[in-house]
Protein backbone atom coordinates (compact mmCIF):
# COMPACT_ATOMS: atom_id res chain seq x y z
CA UNK A 1 0.00 0.00 0.00
CA UNK A 2 2.77 2.43 0.92
CA UNK A 3 4.54 1.90 -2.40
CA UNK A 4 1.31 2.58 -4.28
CA UNK A 5 0.88 5.94 -2.52
CA UNK A 6 4.19 7.26 -3.75
CA UNK A 7 3.39 6.72 -7.40
CA UNK A 8 -0.02 8.31 -7.71
CA UNK A 9 -1.54 11.76 -7.77
CA UNK A 10 -5.10 12.70 -6.96
CA UNK A 11 -6.67 15.01 -9.55
CA UNK A 12 -10.14 16.53 -9.91
CA UNK A 13 -12.68 14.82 -12.22
CA UNK A 14 -13.43 16.08 -15.75
CA UNK A 15 -16.84 17.54 -14.80
CA UNK A 16 -15.35 19.44 -11.87
CA UNK A 17 -12.58 20.74 -14.13
CA UNK A 18 -15.01 22.25 -16.69
CA UNK A 19 -16.38 24.28 -13.79
CA UNK A 20 -12.87 25.41 -12.93
CA UNK A 21 -12.23 26.56 -16.50
CA UNK A 22 -15.51 28.48 -16.66
CA UNK A 23 -14.90 30.23 -13.34
CA UNK A 24 -11.32 31.03 -14.33
CA UNK A 25 -12.44 32.38 -17.70
CA UNK A 26 -15.21 34.57 -16.24
CA UNK A 27 -12.96 35.90 -13.51
CA UNK A 28 -10.17 36.71 -15.97
CA UNK A 29 -12.58 38.65 -18.19
CA UNK A 30 -13.70 40.56 -15.12
CA UNK A 31 -10.13 41.45 -14.11
CA UNK A 32 -9.15 42.43 -17.65
CA UNK A 33 -12.15 44.65 -18.29
CA UNK A 34 -11.93 46.23 -14.81
CA UNK A 35 -8.29 47.15 -15.33
CA UNK A 36 -9.09 48.53 -18.77
CA UNK A 37 -12.01 50.65 -17.50
CA UNK A 38 -9.97 52.01 -14.61
CA UNK A 39 -7.37 53.31 -17.06
CA UNK A 40 -9.60 54.34 -19.95
CA UNK A 41 -12.04 56.32 -17.79
CA UNK A 42 -9.35 57.75 -15.47
CA UNK A 43 -11.22 56.57 -12.40
CA UNK A 44 -8.30 56.71 -9.95
CA UNK A 45 -5.31 58.98 -9.26
CA UNK A 46 -2.05 57.83 -10.84
CA UNK A 47 -0.27 56.23 -7.86
CA UNK A 48 -3.27 54.21 -6.69
CA UNK A 49 -4.12 53.34 -10.29
CA UNK A 50 -0.75 51.74 -11.00
CA UNK A 51 -0.87 49.71 -7.77
CA UNK A 52 -4.44 48.59 -8.53
CA UNK A 53 -3.61 47.49 -12.06
CA UNK A 54 -0.63 45.48 -10.78
CA UNK A 55 -2.82 43.85 -8.13
CA UNK A 56 -5.48 42.97 -10.72
CA UNK A 57 -2.77 41.46 -12.92
CA UNK A 58 -1.36 39.35 -10.06
CA UNK A 59 -4.87 38.28 -9.07
CA UNK A 60 -5.73 37.22 -12.61
CA UNK A 61 -2.40 35.42 -12.87
CA UNK A 62 -3.11 33.48 -9.65
CA UNK A 63 -6.63 32.56 -10.80
CA UNK A 64 -5.35 31.39 -14.18
CA UNK A 65 -2.59 29.35 -12.58
CA UNK A 66 -5.06 27.53 -10.35
CA UNK A 67 -7.99 27.20 -12.77
CA UNK A 68 -6.17 26.65 -16.08
CA UNK A 69 -2.86 25.18 -14.96
CA UNK A 70 -4.27 23.37 -11.91
CA UNK A 71 -1.44 24.58 -9.72
CA UNK A 72 -1.87 23.26 -6.20
CA UNK A 73 -4.99 21.28 -7.06
CA UNK A 74 -3.22 17.96 -7.34
CA UNK A 75 -2.20 16.22 -4.13
CA UNK A 76 1.43 15.07 -3.91
CA UNK A 77 2.57 17.69 -6.44
CA UNK A 78 5.12 19.27 -4.11
CA UNK A 79 7.89 19.26 -6.67
CA UNK A 80 5.82 21.27 -9.13
CA UNK A 81 5.05 23.89 -6.50
CA UNK A 82 8.68 23.99 -5.43
CA UNK A 83 9.89 24.63 -8.98
CA UNK A 84 7.25 27.33 -9.36
CA UNK A 85 8.30 28.94 -6.07
CA UNK A 86 11.94 28.95 -7.12
CA UNK A 87 11.15 30.51 -10.49
CA UNK A 88 9.09 33.15 -8.70
CA UNK A 89 12.06 33.95 -6.46
CA UNK A 90 14.40 34.35 -9.44
CA UNK A 91 11.86 36.57 -11.20
CA UNK A 92 11.43 38.76 -8.12
CA UNK A 93 15.19 39.19 -7.70
CA UNK A 94 15.66 39.93 -11.42
CA UNK A 95 12.99 42.60 -11.64
CA UNK A 96 13.44 44.23 -8.22
CA UNK A 97 17.22 44.10 -8.55
CA UNK A 98 17.25 45.62 -12.04
CA UNK A 99 14.95 48.46 -11.04
CA UNK A 100 16.96 49.19 -7.87
CA UNK A 101 20.36 49.10 -9.52
CA UNK A 102 19.36 51.14 -12.57
CA UNK A 103 17.62 53.71 -10.39
CA UNK A 104 20.73 53.98 -8.27
CA UNK A 105 22.94 54.40 -11.36
CA UNK A 106 20.63 57.00 -12.86
CA UNK A 107 20.86 59.07 -9.71
CA UNK A 108 24.61 59.33 -10.16
CA UNK A 109 24.23 60.57 -13.76
CA UNK A 110 22.56 63.88 -12.90
CA UNK A 111 25.61 66.14 -13.45
CA UNK A 112 27.28 67.36 -16.65
CA UNK A 113 30.45 65.41 -17.67
CA UNK A 114 32.81 68.21 -16.54
CA UNK A 115 31.13 68.43 -13.13
CA UNK A 116 31.25 64.65 -12.96
CA UNK A 117 35.05 64.62 -13.36
CA UNK A 118 35.53 67.19 -10.60
CA UNK A 119 33.23 65.27 -8.30
CA UNK A 120 35.03 62.02 -8.94
CA UNK A 121 38.45 63.58 -8.34
CA UNK A 122 37.30 65.15 -5.07
CA UNK A 123 35.37 62.22 -3.73
CA UNK A 124 37.77 59.56 -4.99
CA UNK A 125 35.21 57.87 -7.21
CA UNK A 126 31.61 57.10 -6.30
Amino acid at each position, binding site marked *: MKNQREHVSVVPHRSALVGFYLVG*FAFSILCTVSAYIL*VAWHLLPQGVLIATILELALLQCAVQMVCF*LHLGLEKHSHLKLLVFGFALLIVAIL*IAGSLWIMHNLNEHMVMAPSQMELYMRHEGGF
Partner: protein
Amino acid sequence: MNTFPHEQVVEHTSETRAVFGFWVYVMSDCVLFASLFAVFAVLRMSTFGGPSGSDIFDLPFVLKETLILLTSSFTCGLGVLAARSGDRRATIFSFVWTFILGAAFVALELSEFAQLLARGEGPQVSAFLSSYFTLVGTHGLHVTLGLIWMLILIVRVVQSGLTRSTTRKLMLLGIFWHFLDIIWIFIFSIVYLIGVV
Protein backbone atom coordinates in the same frame (compact mmCIF):
# COMPACT_ATOMS: atom_id res chain seq x y z
CA MET B 1 -7.03 5.36 -1.12
CA ASN B 2 -9.45 7.77 0.47
CA THR B 3 -10.67 10.23 -2.17
CA PHE B 4 -13.53 12.69 -2.32
CA PRO B 5 -16.32 12.02 -4.89
CA HIS B 6 -14.96 14.66 -7.27
CA GLU B 7 -11.43 13.27 -7.26
CA GLN B 8 -9.83 10.35 -9.02
CA VAL B 9 -6.51 8.59 -8.55
CA VAL B 10 -4.02 8.93 -11.40
CA GLU B 11 -0.89 6.83 -11.67
CA HIS B 12 2.48 8.45 -12.26
CA THR B 13 3.40 7.41 -15.75
CA SER B 14 5.58 8.77 -18.51
CA GLU B 15 2.77 11.28 -18.99
CA THR B 16 3.08 12.91 -15.59
CA ARG B 17 6.86 12.90 -15.91
CA ALA B 18 6.61 14.63 -19.30
CA VAL B 19 4.21 17.18 -17.84
CA PHE B 20 6.55 17.91 -14.95
CA GLY B 21 9.56 18.22 -17.24
CA PHE B 22 7.69 20.58 -19.51
CA TRP B 23 6.58 22.57 -16.48
CA VAL B 24 10.25 23.08 -15.53
CA TYR B 25 10.91 24.35 -19.08
CA VAL B 26 7.95 26.74 -18.84
CA MET B 27 9.31 28.10 -15.56
CA SER B 28 12.65 28.80 -17.22
CA ASP B 29 10.79 30.59 -20.02
CA CYS B 30 9.17 32.71 -17.30
CA VAL B 31 12.64 33.77 -16.19
CA LEU B 32 13.42 34.75 -19.79
CA PHE B 33 10.33 36.93 -19.94
CA ALA B 34 11.13 38.37 -16.52
CA SER B 35 14.46 39.62 -17.83
CA LEU B 36 12.73 41.20 -20.84
CA PHE B 37 10.22 42.80 -18.50
CA ALA B 38 13.04 44.10 -16.28
CA VAL B 39 14.72 45.71 -19.31
CA PHE B 40 11.44 47.26 -20.38
CA ALA B 41 10.78 48.62 -16.88
CA VAL B 42 14.22 50.20 -16.75
CA LEU B 43 14.06 51.71 -20.25
CA ARG B 44 10.39 52.71 -20.45
CA MET B 45 11.18 56.42 -20.04
CA SER B 46 14.05 56.45 -22.51
CA THR B 47 12.13 57.76 -25.48
CA PHE B 48 15.04 59.81 -26.93
CA GLY B 49 12.69 62.43 -28.34
CA GLY B 50 10.59 59.76 -30.01
CA PRO B 51 7.08 58.62 -29.06
CA SER B 52 6.19 57.36 -25.59
CA GLY B 53 3.62 54.76 -24.57
CA SER B 54 0.68 57.12 -24.52
CA ASP B 55 1.58 58.29 -28.05
CA ILE B 56 1.46 54.89 -29.69
CA PHE B 57 -0.77 52.57 -27.65
CA ASP B 58 -4.37 52.09 -28.78
CA LEU B 59 -6.17 50.72 -25.70
CA PRO B 60 -9.45 49.47 -27.25
CA PHE B 61 -7.38 47.59 -29.83
CA VAL B 62 -5.23 45.98 -27.13
CA LEU B 63 -8.33 45.04 -25.11
CA LYS B 64 -9.63 43.23 -28.18
CA GLU B 65 -6.32 41.36 -28.54
CA THR B 66 -6.36 40.46 -24.84
CA LEU B 67 -9.90 39.08 -24.84
CA ILE B 68 -9.18 37.05 -27.98
CA LEU B 69 -6.10 35.42 -26.44
CA LEU B 70 -7.93 34.82 -23.16
CA THR B 71 -10.77 33.06 -24.97
CA SER B 72 -8.28 30.94 -26.88
CA SER B 73 -6.75 29.88 -23.55
CA PHE B 74 -10.23 28.84 -22.39
CA THR B 75 -11.01 26.83 -25.53
CA CYS B 76 -7.56 25.24 -25.26
CA GLY B 77 -8.38 24.10 -21.73
CA LEU B 78 -11.64 22.57 -22.93
CA GLY B 79 -9.71 20.87 -25.72
CA VAL B 80 -7.26 19.23 -23.31
CA LEU B 81 -10.17 18.06 -21.14
CA ALA B 82 -11.83 16.55 -24.20
CA ALA B 83 -8.59 14.82 -25.20
CA ARG B 84 -8.14 13.30 -21.74
CA SER B 85 -11.70 11.96 -21.92
CA GLY B 86 -11.06 10.46 -25.34
CA ASP B 87 -13.62 12.73 -27.02
CA ARG B 88 -12.04 13.13 -30.46
CA ARG B 89 -14.66 15.41 -32.02
CA ALA B 90 -14.69 17.85 -29.12
CA THR B 91 -10.88 17.89 -29.06
CA ILE B 92 -10.63 18.83 -32.74
CA PHE B 93 -13.41 21.40 -32.42
CA SER B 94 -11.83 23.08 -29.39
CA PHE B 95 -8.32 23.18 -30.80
CA VAL B 96 -9.45 24.48 -34.18
CA TRP B 97 -11.16 27.33 -32.36
CA THR B 98 -8.05 27.89 -30.25
CA PHE B 99 -6.00 28.08 -33.44
CA ILE B 100 -8.37 30.55 -35.11
CA LEU B 101 -8.36 32.83 -32.07
CA GLY B 102 -4.60 32.54 -31.66
CA ALA B 103 -4.02 33.33 -35.33
CA ALA B 104 -6.32 36.35 -35.02
CA PHE B 105 -4.24 37.55 -32.07
CA VAL B 106 -1.00 37.25 -34.05
CA ALA B 107 -2.57 38.99 -37.06
CA LEU B 108 -3.69 41.91 -34.87
CA GLU B 109 -0.27 42.17 -33.27
CA LEU B 110 1.49 42.12 -36.65
CA SER B 111 -0.80 44.86 -37.91
CA GLU B 112 0.07 46.93 -34.84
CA PHE B 113 3.79 46.46 -35.50
CA ALA B 114 3.34 47.22 -39.21
CA GLN B 115 1.57 50.47 -38.38
CA LEU B 116 4.36 51.57 -36.06
CA LEU B 117 7.04 50.69 -38.59
CA ALA B 118 5.18 52.53 -41.36
CA ARG B 119 5.16 55.67 -39.21
CA GLY B 120 8.90 55.34 -38.67
CA GLU B 121 8.45 54.38 -35.01
CA GLY B 122 10.43 51.17 -35.13
CA PRO B 123 12.73 49.45 -32.60
CA GLN B 124 15.77 51.46 -33.72
CA VAL B 125 14.28 54.82 -32.70
CA SER B 126 14.73 54.67 -28.92
CA ALA B 127 15.54 52.38 -26.01
CA PHE B 128 11.87 52.37 -25.03
CA LEU B 129 10.79 51.19 -28.50
CA SER B 130 13.63 48.64 -28.68
CA SER B 131 12.57 47.02 -25.41
CA TYR B 132 8.88 47.22 -26.37
CA PHE B 133 9.39 45.47 -29.70
CA THR B 134 11.65 42.87 -28.10
CA LEU B 135 9.28 42.01 -25.25
CA VAL B 136 6.06 41.96 -27.24
CA GLY B 137 7.79 40.45 -30.28
CA THR B 138 9.25 37.58 -28.24
CA HIS B 139 5.80 36.83 -26.85
CA GLY B 140 4.32 36.94 -30.36
CA LEU B 141 7.03 34.59 -31.60
CA HIS B 142 6.16 32.14 -28.81
CA VAL B 143 2.49 32.31 -29.80
CA THR B 144 3.34 31.72 -33.46
CA LEU B 145 5.43 28.66 -32.64
CA GLY B 146 2.58 27.41 -30.44
CA LEU B 147 0.22 27.80 -33.39
CA ILE B 148 2.48 25.74 -35.65
CA TRP B 149 2.69 23.05 -32.96
CA MET B 150 -1.10 23.18 -32.58
CA LEU B 151 -1.65 22.75 -36.30
CA ILE B 152 0.59 19.69 -36.39
CA LEU B 153 -1.24 18.14 -33.42
CA ILE B 154 -4.70 18.87 -34.89
CA VAL B 155 -3.68 17.13 -38.12
CA ARG B 156 -2.35 14.22 -36.01
CA VAL B 157 -5.63 13.83 -34.16
CA VAL B 158 -7.64 14.02 -37.39
CA GLN B 159 -5.45 11.41 -39.06
CA SER B 160 -4.61 8.97 -36.26
CA GLY B 161 -7.09 9.77 -33.47
CA LEU B 162 -6.37 10.31 -29.78
CA THR B 163 -3.48 8.00 -29.00
CA ARG B 164 -1.76 8.08 -25.62
CA SER B 165 1.22 9.91 -27.10
CA THR B 166 -0.93 12.51 -28.90
CA THR B 167 -2.98 13.16 -25.75
CA ARG B 168 0.21 13.70 -23.78
CA LYS B 169 1.43 16.20 -26.40
CA LEU B 170 -1.89 18.04 -26.32
CA MET B 171 -1.50 18.37 -22.54
CA LEU B 172 1.96 19.88 -22.98
CA LEU B 173 0.64 22.29 -25.63
CA GLY B 174 -2.13 23.23 -23.19
CA ILE B 175 0.40 24.13 -20.51
CA PHE B 176 2.37 26.18 -23.05
CA TRP B 177 -0.71 28.03 -24.28
CA HIS B 178 -1.98 28.88 -20.77
CA PHE B 179 1.49 30.12 -19.84
CA LEU B 180 1.52 32.44 -22.88
CA ASP B 181 -1.80 33.96 -21.83
CA ILE B 182 -0.45 34.51 -18.32
CA ILE B 183 2.58 36.34 -19.72
CA TRP B 184 0.22 38.44 -21.84
CA ILE B 185 -1.71 39.48 -18.69
CA PHE B 186 1.46 41.18 -17.53
CA ILE B 187 2.27 42.66 -20.93
CA PHE B 188 -1.26 44.06 -21.14
CA SER B 189 -1.09 45.49 -17.61
CA ILE B 190 2.49 46.72 -17.41
CA VAL B 191 3.32 47.70 -20.97
CA TYR B 192 -0.01 48.97 -22.27
CA LEU B 193 -2.16 50.01 -19.30
CA ILE B 194 0.57 51.42 -17.07
CA GLY B 195 2.40 52.71 -20.14
CA VAL B 196 -0.50 54.99 -20.90
CA VAL B 197 -0.93 56.27 -17.33
